[in-house]
C-alpha cells in the first residue's frame, strides 16, 4: 500500500511500462481491462445473492423471501 502510494506520488508523469500515456492501443487495452474488472466484480456480487439496487433487500417482500430462504443451507429437494 505505502509502496504503491509512494510510487504514485513520486513519479506522477512517468511513462508506464515504457508506453506513452497517449498511446491509443494501450489506452484501448486499459479501457477493456477496466471494463472487464468492473463487470467481473459486479457479477461476483450476484453470486452471493445480492439483488440489484432497485431490487428488494434481504428479507424483502414478494419472491425475495423464497429466493433468499435457502441462503444458509440451500433449498431442500433439487
Amino acid at each position, binding site marked *: 500500500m505505502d509502496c*504503491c502510494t509512494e*510510487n504514485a506520488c513520486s513519479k506522477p508523469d512517468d511513462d508506464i511500462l515504457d508506453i506513452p500515456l497517449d498511446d491509443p492501443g494501450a489506452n484501448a487495452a486499459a479501457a477493456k481491462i477496466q471494463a472487464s474488472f468492473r*463487470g467481473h*466484480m459486479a457479477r461476483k456480487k450476484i453470486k452471493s445473492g445480492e439483488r440489484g439496487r432497485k431490487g428488494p433487500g434481504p428479507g424483502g417482500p414478494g419472491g425475495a423471501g423464497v429466493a433468499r430462504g435457502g441462503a444458509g443451507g440451500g433449498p431442500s429437494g433439487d
Partner: protein
Amino acid sequence: MAISPRSDATFSSQKSTPSESPRTKKFPLTEEEIFYMNCRAAYLTVFKSSLENIISKDQLYLALQHAGRNPSQKTINKYWTPQTAKLNFDDFCIILRKEKPTSKAELLKSFKQLDVNDDGCILHTDLYKFLTKRGEKMTREEVNAIINLADVNADGKFDYIKFCKLYMTTNEQCLKTTLEKLEVDSKLMRHQFGNHIEGSPERDPSPVPKPSPKITRKTDPETFLNKGDTRSSLLSATRKFKTSVSFTVTMGANGNRNSKLMEPNLIKDWQHMQSKGCFFLEEDGEIISHQYRMQIAQRSMVYLTIKPLNLSQVEGKPSPWLSVDTALYILKENESQANLQLVCFTELRNREVFGWTGELGPGIYWLIPSTTGCRLRKKIKPVTDEAQLVYRDETGELFLTKEFKSTLSDIFEVIDLDGNGLLSLEEYNFFELRTSGEKCDEDAWAVCRENFDTKRNELTRQGFMDLNLMEANDREGDPCDLWVTLHSMGYNKALELTEACPFVIDIYAEKCKPKIKAVHMEACSGQLEKAICKSVLSNGDAKVMDGYENIIVHTYSCDTWITSVIENKSDEKVIIHISNELSKNCINNRGLNIFAVEVGPKSTMVCQHVMPLNERQEWIYYCIYSLIS
C-alpha cells in the same frame, strides 16, 4: 454464504415449491429463446418486471453487467444520450444483441499487452499505475479490490491467466444464478404474462427456423399496406422511443371454446344461395378477392358461412390453400355504394368454416371476403420439375396432358362462381381480366359460343378445355402463354396451387330468397380495411400510449387470429415501431418481426394480423408498440 449452483438449475423448475410443476422439455431451446431468457433473467435482477423502464445510466450499466457484458462509459453514453429519458426491455434486448460478451481470447490479448516478461503475470505496481492513469481511470479502491482477489494474486503479482479463467467461471455462475431467480419469480411472471414462462410451447422435431432480424437486411419484396408503411430492419441505437405499450395474449392449442359456429335448426327449410370466389396473391404480396352484392328482400334470419373450396385432390399433390383463414365482412348500403356501414363479420368458427348468424333487414348488402394473409404468402421454394402441359401424338396432333386437363378442370370449378356447371360471360370475364388484363366483349363471346361447346349461351367445361387447346395450337404448342394463365391463377410450375385460395360462400335466409352477385375483384384494402378497423375498434381491447392519449393500440383476438389496429387521434402523423420478437409460435401477415408503420393524422390503420405457426400448439402473442415520432 453463496448458494451452491446445481448443474440442472438453469432449466429445471424448483420442485420444492409446491405451486410449480416440473417442466419437461423434449426439444432444446432455440438460440433465440435462450437469448431472450438470458435477457429477462439479467433485467429482472435490477427490475421487478420487464415492463419497468430503465430510468438511469446506472441501471442500464448494472443490467448490462448482469447480462455478462462489460460496458464502458463510452459504450453506455452511446445508448444513453443526453436526450435519453428512459429505455425499455425491448431496447435492452437490442443493446445486448449489439454488445457481445467479451471472450476469453480477447481478454487475454489485452492483458498480454501489459506483460513485459511474457510470463503470465503483471506486477501490482505496474497494474496500479496502468489502470489509474489510462483508459477510464479506476480508483485506488477499485484496483485494490482486484489485487485482493486471493486466487489470482501472489507475491505482488497479478496472474492474469488465472484471472481469465476465474472471469469465465464467474460469468457462467452469474448466468446460472440469474436464471434460477427467473425460475423463482415464475409465479409472479405467470400473473403478469399469462403463463409465458411455464407455457413455452414444445416444438416439432424439425422446426422451421424463425429468422432473427439482422443489423443489415435485404429489401423485403413482400410489402403489405405500402401506403404509410415505413420499414426499418433494426432500429438505430441512436433513435429513441418516446413511449411504448405492449400487449400479450396466450392461446391454448386449437382453442375453440367461446366462438363455436352452430347451424340453425331447420336450416334445410331455409332458402339457400351459394357463390364461389378466390383470394389471389399479387406480385407485390397484396391480396385481391371477389366482392359481392347481396339483396335481402324482407327482414329475415340469415346464416352466412365462408370456407376454403375443397377441389378434387390429386394424390400426392399438396393443397396449402385449405389451411388459409377466411372471413366475410357484411356491410349495408345506405343511400349509395360510397356509404357502407359495417353490420357484422363471420366471427364464429367450426373447424375450417367461419360464419355468422343473425337477423338482417331488407336492403342491399356488400359481402367482402377477407384473409389475414398469414397463411397465403409468397414462398421462395424453387420448383425443380416443370409439368408438361401439351404433347403431340404420332400424327403430330396437339393434345392437352392429363395433368393439365385436371388443373383446367379445377380452374373451371373456381371461376364457375354460381356452381351451375357453366361459365357465363360475366364469370368468364373475371377469369379473363385476371389472366390477360382485358375483358371479353359480346362479339368475342359470340365467336366463342360458335366455336366451343355451350349450353344456354354459357361455356361448358369441355368448351373451356377446348378453348385452352386452341390457344396452345395458336402458339404451335409453345406453352408460354398457358403458363402465364396458370401463374396468374396461383399455380406454380409443378401445377400446385400455392398463391391463391378459392373459397365458397353459403347464404341461408329463413323468409326470402337471397340474391348474390360477384361485382368486382378488388384489393383487400379500402372498404375492407375500414371494416376491419371498425370491427377491431368495436370488439378489441384498447391501450393508450403512456403520456400520449391520442395514440391508441386496439387488439382483437379470437381463437384463430389476432388483429391489431393503431388509432391516431392527433392532428399529426405518427410513426410506430412494432416488435414481435418476444412472441412464440406466431406468424404475422407482414412477414417481419420488427417493422414500423406511419399512421396519418386522425386516422386508423391495420397494424398486423397474427396467427399460430402450428395450430396444434400453444401460441403466445407478445407485441411491443413504441412511438418514434
